[in-house]
């Protein structure tokens, strides 16, 4: 059996063919010249570009900055260096200003938006009043919630909850689609942040401070992510400006150097690492991959 000598063509000058149904005058382990011709490396890899990556990282920086700002507010409240009344007034003002900005963007974004904006506004006002009153009513209970718990348990729990919040948050970008299903992880993320806020608020000394902090937490963790996603569709200078402002505000947090280090590494370090790691990208595609059926709408099963 001619199994070892690699002849280019068979005995009668046959060209090798990639067919199984005909017995060919080649040994079964013959390596044809077209071997692995269908292999393609990194066919659909788009190399990351520096600016879009950093712009994307801005979203995460904004999110982390908000956590740091929240921590800063808490520390100042705890040390009585911030008047709770000022915080309540500022929070309310921010909310009103935020609403106005939102409405303006809505107005300029798409003029012909249906679903009766006045109706939606009424619902928003009702919901915000409800939350406002509920928080006032709950403040005395929250203040004494964790009285018997030691301070280090509280810091550990808060740290864990904020890490969960930052890890599970929905950083994805969406182009102003009105119908949007909230993902489970982003709901969990908001829950973790609000729990952390409750735990921290319970260490404060008077009811008004507790109320102020909770009001601020609702704004920072429930409303800001919605606003942030809207910012993502804005031009790059606006995003950079917002990130810069929030980053500067974050420096008021208890450990400013650490906060700055985290923010800088997220904004500049992480994209740089990703750019550097791109050289190791090695994606193999070939005719053995499962084909993707196209040309029809997928039928929803079940």
């Amino acid at each position, binding site marked *: *059996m001619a*199994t*070892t000598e690699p002849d280019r063509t068979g005995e009668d000058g046959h060209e090798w063919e*990639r*067919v*199984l*149904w*005909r*017995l060919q005058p080649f*040994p*079964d*382990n013959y*390596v*044809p010249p077209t*071997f*692995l011709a*269908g*292999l393609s490396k990194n066919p659909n890899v788009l190399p990351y570009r520096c600016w879009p990556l950093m712009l994307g990282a801005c979203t995460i920086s904004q999110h982390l900055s908000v956590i740091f700002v929240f921590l800063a507010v808490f520390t100042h409240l705890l040390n009585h260096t911030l008047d709770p009344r000022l915080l309540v007034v500022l929070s309310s003002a921010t909310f009103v200003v935020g609403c106005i900005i939102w409405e303006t963007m809505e107005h300029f974004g798409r003029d012909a938006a249906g679903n009766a904006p006045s109706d939606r506004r009424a619902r928003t006002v009702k919901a915000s009043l409800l939350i406002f009153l509920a928080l006032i009513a709950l403040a005395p209970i929250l203040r004494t919630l964790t009285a018997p718990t030691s301070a280090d348990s509280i810091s550990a729990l808060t740290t864990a909850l904020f890490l969960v919040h930052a890890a599970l948050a929905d950083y994805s970008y969406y182009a102003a689609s009105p119908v949007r299903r909230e993902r489970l992880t982003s709901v969990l993320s908001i829950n973790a942040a609000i729990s952390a806020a409750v735990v921290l608020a319970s260490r404060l000394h008077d009811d008004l401070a507790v109320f102020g902090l909770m009001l601020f937490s609702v704004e920072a963790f429930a409303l800001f992510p919605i606003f942030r996603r809207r910012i993502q569709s804005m031009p790059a200078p606006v995003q950079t400006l917002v990130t810069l402002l929030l980053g500067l505000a974050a420096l008021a947090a208890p450990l400013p150097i650490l906060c700055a280090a985290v923010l800088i590494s997220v904004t500049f370090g992480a994209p740089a690492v990703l750019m550097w790691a791109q050289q190791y990208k090695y*994606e*193999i595609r*070939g*005719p*053995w*991959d*499962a*084909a*993707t*059926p*196209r*040309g*029809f709408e*997928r*039928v929803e*099963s*079940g």
Partner: protein
Amino acid sequence: MISDFFHPEVGGVENHIYMLGASLIRRGHKVIVITHSHPPDRVGVRWLVPGLKVYHIPFPTLVSSATLPNFLTFLPYFRTIVLRERITLIHSHASLSSLGHEGILHAHLLGVRTVFTDHSLFGFDDAASILTNKLLEGMLRNVDAAICVSYIGRENTVLRANLPPKSVYVIPNAIVADNFRPAHSRPHTDTITIIVISRLAYRKGVDLLVATAPRICAAFPDVRFVVGGDGPKMADLLQMRETHFLQDRITVLGPVVHRDVPSVLRQGSIFLNTSLTEAFGIAILEAACAGLHVVSTRVGGVPEILPEDMISFAAPTADDVFRAMSEAIALVAQGGHDPHRAHQRIRGFYDWTRVAERTEVVYRNVLATPPYSLWTRIERTMGLGPFVGPIYTVILIVDCLFFALLERWMPRENIDYVDVKWDATRFETVGFL
């Protein structure tokens, strides 16, 4: 032959092992099969019809009939079986069979050579593939030769397991042509029946079938479908049939036993395969052998198995499947496809005896080359990678120590050797066959 996948399970690998074993026995070899047991009734040692001895190892199965990869526990059984049956070569099947991998790992301890057959295609981009590919690379590091069922499978295996292409052979599957004879009378030309027999799963392209079947039914009033098989996408199929009011045009058979496949195939004149990936496509071959014109998506090894005039190809899009089906229906309606001629051609292409001959060549080549020494094995295993290399080397060395322990614990003199050979001719003279 070692594999987790064997009778009484049914499937391509199971059938391949049985047919190859039977053909090798006919050529005068002694073949035994080692697989895991199927309690309560399929345990111990059994004989299958042409004198194929099957050892069932009492290992529990993990998922879909594969045993847990535990690297060492098979060795006591393996050593005893290989010694008492005086085995010279083991042939392991299927890349997800850990029993087969273990056989390759242990074989060198007994001076037995190894051949591995891969039956499927894997991707490179999901976590499960990466893990199983690494496992395969580690296990096939010291295999003597590998066999794939198609050229595409060979390219895939060479990449996955990092094997030298020269040590990988291509030997296609075969079919028993006698089981797939076309119907004697030509089917009525006024209605054309399209047969689909497939597991109704995403990878088999059921979405394409669901998208194109109503269009074909609307365009050709004298066409009907017969769909055999079951699976997670069954609901989609039934839903499509109801939304388009095609209950009288599309017959859904549900699960079809392999024994009944020929009779289902004989009802039709066109076979539609919409798979998204296929290493070989034995179902296509069976259909072509039963005299059907085949329409298939151009994926995997399908373009290799039939000459262009027996099969119509389509890209995996609904529009193109519809186009290919329209052409095939026109061809069959004009009587441009002769089932009996197709059957005769397939009969000439694929034959188990030829597969056995070609496999024999692989065995001879393997037995003619010198085996790796233990030190070479260790060096090659270390070359797997900075993390995997040492892990597999530790496994290799522990395996050797375990073997040394077994040599002391169960000495070779105490093993009950099998010296009586199954003699088919004598069996015949006694009158049983």
